[in-house]
């Protein structure tokens, strides 16, 4: 049954105007793309302030705007706090540990994907293949989360059921991604983050005002469930101490293996700009995560009897924004969120298609034989369309909330990519067998434990991806000490 009974026209007009603008930017940026590097890495020509805001937008995404409020609505402040602080810690750590080395590799060796970097560091095409498979699988889940989030947003504007809303959303996202490329994504991210900074900040304080203030809101929550105002749940909630550490590990340290974010380091025009992109990304991300807490306001207003109970947790943010905020702010918020979904979705699809075309076909199957420009572009666009089609079919009946889907996909990236990537740049002794073993353990272990959790066989409170990630780190260190150090292109 539709979540609303009539079209929200004021919100719709603002959203349409904004989307027309963003698509015009995509078309303009797309016209300048002539090579694969342009398509995937924006040709290293994006100013630092656009990259900084683009990192915020890609980190936040539809998962952040729709999935997180849904999880916060269900479980209280804890998940929003852990994920917000985890990801923002990851933003800062990524600059400290990866930004400069990755940018250097891109300049010197022409690397444009994370599998490129891993192959270069460890001299292993098998590792490239494992990384590419991890990226593809992670993308499927994350992209499904984006599509579902987009459909939920459309459901709050139009009287639509989920499946028609999904197909409309996928059509818009497809047009946007295939026409543009990374540069269009980067510029759309920039505008979207500006809008979201204003909208998230306004929604946070306005929601607090509607609830009667933060203290009153928390008292209302605590009266219903004490766990909802705690960081560590002690009365049966899911955020136990172990859950906190495992989720923080996946979000904070695992951030360093997120391909859709890490590729932003390649795009920056001048390396020195990384200095200030870090500050900008950190500060803006900490502001936009206030959007998570629309889930709190929706729950409090329901408990206070000021609004009807929503039918599904993933509708918490869309319904709160559509029904509680003034029309102009609701329109801007929707536009910003939809643009966030568009840009992250675009980034993910491009990362996935680059994994297929560049990492699997060109580098692994064709043994590095170069394709000519038009053939590269043709394959890239076909792979992009293929990934969108498969993910759309999976999104028709997603297995869980947007928030959990996104967390699992984030975890696949973290468990597969983070350990060999980070330790490879900072530990000279790190060896090829260790990287292959750790990536395999992370990938297979993460997907296996997540599947067992869905089947109710894995019942621990620790996040399954966190367990796989920790196992990958241990395996990497042990195997490195058991094997002989080898020369490699980065350190030598």
């Amino acid at each position, binding site marked *: 049954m539709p979540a609303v009974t009539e079209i929200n026209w004021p919100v719709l007009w603002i959203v349409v105007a904004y989307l027309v603008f963003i698509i015009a930017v995509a078309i303009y940026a797309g016209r300048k793309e002539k090579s694969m590097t342009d398509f995937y890495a924006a040709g290293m020509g994006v100013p630092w302030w656009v990259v900084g805001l683009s990192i915020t937008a890609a980190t936040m995404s539809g998962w952040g705007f729709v999935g997180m409020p849904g999880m916060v609505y269900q479980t209280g402040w804890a998940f929003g706090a852990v994920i917000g*602080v985890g990801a923002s810690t990851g933003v800062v750590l990524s600059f400290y540990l990866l930004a*400069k*080395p990755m940018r250097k590799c891109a300049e010197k060796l022409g690397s444009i994907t994370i599998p490129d970097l891993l192959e270069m560091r460890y001299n292993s095409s098998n590792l490239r293949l494992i990384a590419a498979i991890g990226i593809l699988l992670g993308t499927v889940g994350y992209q499904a989360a984006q599509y579902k989030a987009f459909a939920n947003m459309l459901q709050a504007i139009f009287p639509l059921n989920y499946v028609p809303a999904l197909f409309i959303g996928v059509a818009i996202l497809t047009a946007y991604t295939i026409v543009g490329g990374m540069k269009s994504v980067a510029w759309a991210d920039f505008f979207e983050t500006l809008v979201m900074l204003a909208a998230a900040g306004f929604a946070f304080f306005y929601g607090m005002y509607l609830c009667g203030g933060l*203290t009153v809101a*928390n008292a209302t929550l605590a009266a219903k469930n004490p766990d909802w*105002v*705690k*960081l560590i749940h002690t009365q049966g909630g899911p955020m136990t101490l172990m859950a906190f550490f495992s989720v923080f590990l996946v979000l904070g340290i695992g951030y360093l293996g997120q391909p859709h974010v890490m590729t932003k380091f390649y795009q920056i025009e001048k390396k020195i700009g990384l200095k200030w992109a870090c500050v900008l990304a*950190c500060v803006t991300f900490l502001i936009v995560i206030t959007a998570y807490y629309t889930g709190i306001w929706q729950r409090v207003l329901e408990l206070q009897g000021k609004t009807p109970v929503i039918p599904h947790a993933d509708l918490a943010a869309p319904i709160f924004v559509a029904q509680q905020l003034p029309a102009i702010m609701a329109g801007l918020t929707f536009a910003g969120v939809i643009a966030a979904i568009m840009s992250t979705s675009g980034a993910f699809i491009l990362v996935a298609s680059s994994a297929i075309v560049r990492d699997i076909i060109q580098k692994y199957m064709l043994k590095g034989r170069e394709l000519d420009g038009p053939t590269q572009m043709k394959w890239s666009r076909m792979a992009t369309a293929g990934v969108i089609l498969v993910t759309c079919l999976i999104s028709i009946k997603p297995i869980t909330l947007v928030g959990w889907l996104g967390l699992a996909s984030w975890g696949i990236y973290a468990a597969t990519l983070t350990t060999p990537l980070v330790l490879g740049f900072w530990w000279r002794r790190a060896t090829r067998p260790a990287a292959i073993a750790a990536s395999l353990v992370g990938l297979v272990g993460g997907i296996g434990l997540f599947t067992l959790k869905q089947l109710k066989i894995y019942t621990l409170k620790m996040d399954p991806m966190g367990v796989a990630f920790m196992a990958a780190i241990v395996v990497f260190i042990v195997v490195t000490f058991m094997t002989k150090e080898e020369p490699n292109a980065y350190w030598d």
Partner: protein
Amino acid sequence: MRTKIKKEGIRDSYTFGNDQTKNEKEVIIMFGWSPGLFFIFCIWMPLLILFAVLYGVYFYDKQKKAD
């Protein structure tokens, strides 16, 4: 039901339900958050901004190998 407890560093304490016992009272500080949430929002997050600034003004230039 809400009661106020006057203790150093503790502003409010909420009681939950009607069968509240002394041991079940939750320590709630500023804004009705638990100490953990207060730490995350009011201490950890500002520290992150400090570290981001430190990267720009100091640590970026220290990573010589990546130049």
